């Protein structure tokens, strides 16, 4: 495949607030048609980066090009072509879903039957056609988020930027949104930039990922590249359900060749996390059975972004002379 055309490019992009760096020397390349993930904990500079790409915040240094346009100089032309779903998106509660979208259309210079057709089509796509004429007041959080997607899409953008699109949404809602993102990228050829702190979701839909830590991108590339480039060497992980004495189970699991880390899910002593090099499944099962422990669950978690992410995050934190965060919960909460 020939290298795809670069649609978003930043060169040494920086944003400072006083002496604090919100974004530090960012070099980013997003290609046409891909789903690009910005992954990082809250406050890592993801939203600031997005605001600079939209021309809503002025860079302190460096440059950005979106569709070949400089967002700082031609914000209107950029914003006309880029759909943005902000974090905590809101709507005018006293208006219906359709009226809210109609307002967005008017602001984009889309009027009349063209607008009505687009509104209907996108409301159907996000599954809100039945409630199109209900006041947004009555919408649930998940419905608002889907309406937000429709709102970003009614201007038929070339690029869709989503900021934490799945925050505080139930699992079904999350799946619906991620499926739609998948579909948009595959069928409609929309380039998607998705910012999130939720690893599994980024992992599910993104072709390439940039990991943000404290305003800096510490790693960028496809998931497999990131896993390979990580000196922790973690590639797979399993969820293992087994009953018995915690200490014994831990010892058994730890003795399996290739295992690099073990953990339990919260206070539950019955489900264990095991990560390690590939080909782990067989020796893992054999060791457990040899020790007289019969697992009632072995679930392949696939390539584990948690470990990749944590690995990068810990090394970045150590470099910065800070105490590494040992729990992912601390990072993502």
């Amino acid at each position, binding site marked *: 495949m020939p290298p795809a*055309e*670069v*649609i978003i*490019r930043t*060169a040494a992009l920086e944003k400072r607030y006083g002496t604090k760096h919100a974004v530090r020397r960012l070099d980013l390349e997003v290609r046409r048609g891909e789903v690009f993930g910005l992954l990082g904990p809250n406050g890592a500079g993801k*939203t600031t980066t997005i*605001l600079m790409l*939209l021309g*809503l*915040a002025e860079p302190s240094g460096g*440059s950005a*090009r979106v*569709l*070949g346009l400089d967002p700082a100089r031609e*914000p*209107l*032309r950029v*914003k*006309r*072509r*880029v759909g*943005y779903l*902000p*974090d*905590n*998106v*809101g*709507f*005018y*509660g*006293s*208006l219906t879903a359709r009226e809210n979208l109609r*307002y*967005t259309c*008017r*602001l*984009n*210079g*889309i009027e009349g039957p063209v607008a009505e057709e687009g509104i209907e089509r996108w409301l159907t796509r996000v599954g809100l056609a039945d409630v199109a004429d209900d006041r947004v007041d009555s919408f649930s959080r998940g419905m608002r988020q889907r309406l*937000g997607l429709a*709102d970003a899409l009614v*201007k038929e953008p070339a690029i869709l930027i989503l900021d934490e699109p799945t925050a505080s949404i139930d699992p079904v809602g999350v799946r619906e949104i991620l499926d739609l993102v998948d579909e948009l990228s595959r069928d409609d050829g929309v380039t998607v930039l998705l910012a999130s702190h939720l690893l599994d979701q980024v992992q599910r839909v993104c072709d390439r990922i940039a990991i943000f830590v404290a305003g800096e991108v510490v790693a960028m590339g496809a998931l497999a590249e990131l896993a390979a480039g990580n000196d922790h060497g973690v590639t797979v992980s399993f969820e293992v359900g087994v009953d018995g004495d915690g200490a014994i189970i831990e010892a058994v699991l730890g003795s399996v060749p290739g295992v690099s880390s073990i953990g339990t899910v919260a206070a539950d002593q019955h489900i264990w996390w095991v990560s390690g090099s590939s080909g782990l499944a067989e020796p893992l099962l054999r060791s457990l059975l040899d020790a007289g422990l019969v697992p009632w669950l072995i679930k392949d978690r696939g390539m584990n972004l948690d470990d990749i992410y944590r690995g990068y995050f810990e090394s970045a934190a150590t470099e910065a002379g800070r105490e590494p965060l040992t729990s992912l919960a601390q990072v993502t909460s």
Partner: protein
Amino acid sequence: MSATDMATIAPAAEARYRDSVDERIPRGWRVIAGKELADLLTSARSLVLLVVLGLAGAGILVSVSSTIRDVASQASGSQGVFLALFTLNPNTSLTTAQLPSMVALVGFIGPLLGIALGFDSINGERSEGTLSRLVSQPIYRDDVINGKFVARLAVIAILLGFVVLMVCGVGIWRIGVVPDTDDVLRIGTWYLLTVVYVGFWLSVATLASVFFRRAATAALVVLAFWLVLTFFGSMIADLLAGYLAPSGELAWYGWRQGIDQLVPQTLYFDIVTAIMDPAVRTLDVVGSAMLQLDQRALPTLLPFGQSALVAWGQITMLAAGTIVAFALAYVAFMRQEIRA
């Protein structure tokens, strides 16, 4: 980034699409103003304001028109009977309560109108989470505050226009006097200046709505500001003038008036006095005292143009005050981070 890079990013087809799309980007503030106006006119808030203004206006109108016949004879000597509809203090047998004149009522309720419409214009958008969505549309950021301001000023103009037309209509019908050109000019000017004055309070409320994240806080702060100026403005002017000149001397009166006119309420009512009363020949306290002492000055009525000249300085100040207040709100909004 080199020019060749730019060329690969924007092929010809894209460029054509780009130009066709760009042509359709509308003037953002107009779209926003249109939407805000539609929202406000159908909102419960406007209805309440309309009812309050309408009822108060109607009440005073009934009292005024029941007394206007008694005073018509004496009023005709000093000023137009039609203007008396607006400026007369109703003194009726219906009630012993002291009712304000129509201009006093409008001057009192006007600021509240501006505050009621402005206190949540920006922070409301912010707390609903619609601001970040709005500014990510192809509009400039100032389109948001401009569009909102224009829409609210239009609502104010509509509400005040309703009251003025109601008074004029009932006046013509009840007392059977048709306003002459001079009356129409005076009432029209008073109406426009009142919109500017209410625009001042709207700007102050908008400024508060930029600064305070909670609409309730913004409303309380502006109301407090208005109350302090209304009830203590003159007292503060007295005290300050006392530092600048010995109390009671001619210079003291001059200072006192100068400082007092920095209070928007005083400024506005001074203008109203000059515009709505043709007998007023100067707004300068010292000057008017001299006029009264001078036996040669015959009491005459000024034509509208002369009345406007009498208050010209004050009118300029009022307009400047409104512009400065809006400019402050504008700058504050432009400098603010979009992110909550």
